[in-house]
């Protein structure tokens, strides 16, 4: 045993002389000091990383058997759709790999939404973590792209018509839209060319960027250190050393979290992989048919809040962003110098002309994209003197509660066929959603916050 140990030590010395292996381990695990009061909410970052690894590994095996081919086989079924069924039936353990991947996609979003919620609770996006946050927003956008392109690959009715709806959004862009849509689809309708594009995006282009961004996200986090539920930098604490090393304390805690997470995850994979039609939609078991549009095309649940925002922008509703823009520019004109006043007035006029002349469908797409982009502004919108919800005042708590409610309501409505009343509710939800961000500089300044503890409460 002693001999083996000394051999291993010499091997490690050999490697360390050529590559900073021990230094990396110390920097990222054994001597990476983290606050000791990280709670339940802090597990979702690590779980998101786990889901990424799971999706990559299962995805590799799926790509071995999947065929991105929209042509019709001898039985009248598109080859792509049939190849998924071959994986489900005739590839050994193919059903498990496919269900892990399909459940993994939805659970990835669950985990990421909870990860983001943790940042909202404890103000993890605030200075000095702006870059961690911005990289996170970019990761989320990649995740949306990879989920959308992957969903098209199963080539069922929902895949096909969902792709049709999303690709048609591009054609609402003034002037270049219709040509851009054809360039993206590779055809006038979603077809074989689109499927090939989605395959390339899903298996290589987006994941490559995604993995790079995740690495940058972690590197940036290591630079500034983890936030904690008190929102007070533990490095500024009075006794100076309340941090504990990541390894072994948080590694063992993560192992426990992993066990707690894998139990419900496996229960879904093995006992209800369709999850009531939310993780695998029933209509998607019907092969894509360009001649039969389903009565109602619903997006996957994780896109539905954004889809709701898209649909909420009806021609009548455009007056709401019109008013908001007007108020904003009046404020700018009131406070700024005369040369800027002129440009502001010009921009306001252009915006008004745009709202008046360009189709509401375009503004719906702008609102949908904006509803994701606006997250990036969060570090500069929050002017609260404290970070954590524990010490924030009433307005911030109320705003967060309203925001979460609007997100859930928009999510529900996005999966329902639109009616007059539901559209009205989704418009109210859209206003609340954007108000949470855009009014943040106002209500966080007005808030009466509690004083933060000078040092962390252990």
């Amino acid at each position, binding site marked *: 045993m002693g001999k083996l140990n000394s051999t291993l030590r010499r091997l490690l010395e050999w490697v360390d002389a050529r590559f900073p292996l021990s230094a990396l381990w110390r920097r990222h695990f054994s001597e990476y000091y983290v606050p000791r009061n990280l709670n339940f909410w802090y597990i979702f970052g690590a779980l998101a990383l786990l889901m990424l690894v799971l999706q990559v590994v299962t995805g590799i095996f799926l790509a071995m058997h999947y065929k991105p081919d929209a042509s019709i086989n001898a039985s*009248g079924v598109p080859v792509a759709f049939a190849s998924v069924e071959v994986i489900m039936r005739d590839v050994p353990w193919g059903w498990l790999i496919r269900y892990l991947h399909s459940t993994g996609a939805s659970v990835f979003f669950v985990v990421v939404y909870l990860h983001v919620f943790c940042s909202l609770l404890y103000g993890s996006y605030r200075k000095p973590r702006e870059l961690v946050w911005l990289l996170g927003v970019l990761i989320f956008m990649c995740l949306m792209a990879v989920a959308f392109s992957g969903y098209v690959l199963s080539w069922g009715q929902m895949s096909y018509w969902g792709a049709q709806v999303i690709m048609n959004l591009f054609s609402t862009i003034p002037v270049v839209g219709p040509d851009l849509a054809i360039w993206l689809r590779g055809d006038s309708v979603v077809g074989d060319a689109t499927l090939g594009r989605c395959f390339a995006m899903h298996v290589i282009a987006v994941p490559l960027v995604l993995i790079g961004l995740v690495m940058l996200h972690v590197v940036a986090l290591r630079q500034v250190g983890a936030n904690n539920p008190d929102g007070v930098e533990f490095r500024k604490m009075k006794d100076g050393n309340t941090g504990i090393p990541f390894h072994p304390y948080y590694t*063992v805690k993560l192992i426990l979290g992993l066990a707690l997470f894998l139990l419900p995850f496996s229960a879904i994979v*093995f006992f209800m992989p369709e999850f009531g039609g939310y993780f695998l939609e029933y209509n998607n078991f019907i092969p894509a048919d360009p001649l039969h549009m389903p009565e109602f095309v619903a997006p996957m649940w994780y896109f539905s809040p954004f889809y709701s925002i898209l649909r909420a922008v009806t021609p009548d509703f455009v007056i709401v962003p019109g008013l908001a823009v007007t108020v904003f520019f009046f404020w700018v004109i009131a406070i700024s110098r005369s040369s800027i006043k002129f440009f502001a007035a010009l921009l306001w006029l252009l915006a008004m002309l745009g709202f008046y002349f360009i189709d509401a469908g375009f503004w719906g797409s702008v609102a949908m994209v904006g509803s994701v982009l606006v997250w990036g502004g969060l570090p500069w919108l929050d002017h609260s003197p404290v970070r954590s919800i524990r010490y924030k005042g009433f307005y911030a708590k109320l705003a967060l509660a309203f925001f979460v409610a609007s997100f859930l309501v928009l999510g529900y409505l996005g999966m329902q066929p639109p009616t007059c009343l539901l559209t009205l509710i989704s418009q109210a939800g859209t206003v609340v959603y954007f108000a949470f961000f855009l009014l943040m500089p106002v209500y966080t300044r007005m808030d009466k916050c509690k004083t933060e503890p000078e040092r962390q409460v252990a």
Partner: protein
Amino acid sequence: MSRLLIVLAFIPLVAFAGGGVALLDKAPDKSADMGALQNGARLYVDYCLGCHSVSHLRYGRLRDIGLSEAQIIGNSQSPGGKQREPMHSADARLSVGSVAPDLSLITRARSSELGSGADWLYTYLRSFYRDENRPTGWNNSVVENTGMPHVLWELQGELVMDDNQGLKLVKPGRPKPEEYDTIVSDLTAFLSYAAEPAASDRKWWGYVVLVGLSVFLVLAYALKREFWKDIH
């Protein structure tokens, strides 16, 4: 252009006519009953395969429900010895008006908030009634104005719809009515199997994995407690 396409896409839907909301009967779970699955496979070949393919179901998956090679070959041949297969799509369009859908995944595709796809199929196949206004002479209370004729009519007999929208048996079929329910449930069980042959394997492994993870959970908790007892 896209608007035109969407309008065009709706036309077949109108011709198809969606079904009204009907309460679905619960299909008995026969997923572990090899006899029922085999009987369902035989019924499928005898009554359904003339129009409906099950293209995703391969030979090996029929072996899995205990059918021998001789049975599979013998069953799938018509009395003349010709291998049975669905009619060509051109013939189907001429005689029935549309190509009958492939049924490999029908019990998954027909799932809804009303019930599982198996419930839907089990109810649908027991809800045909006489309707002289339809080209086939049959209508269905689950899918109103269905294009499919009642191919199992010899087995079920003839039902008519009374004034309260209820179905009444007016001319019994060869087997007794309860036997017809068994026949349909066997056929449903076979198609549920065809929709996901791995389903029973999946559940079996599910129990194994959950037990394994529970043990892992206990160990992980003990490990965490051991390390964290020094902190605080």
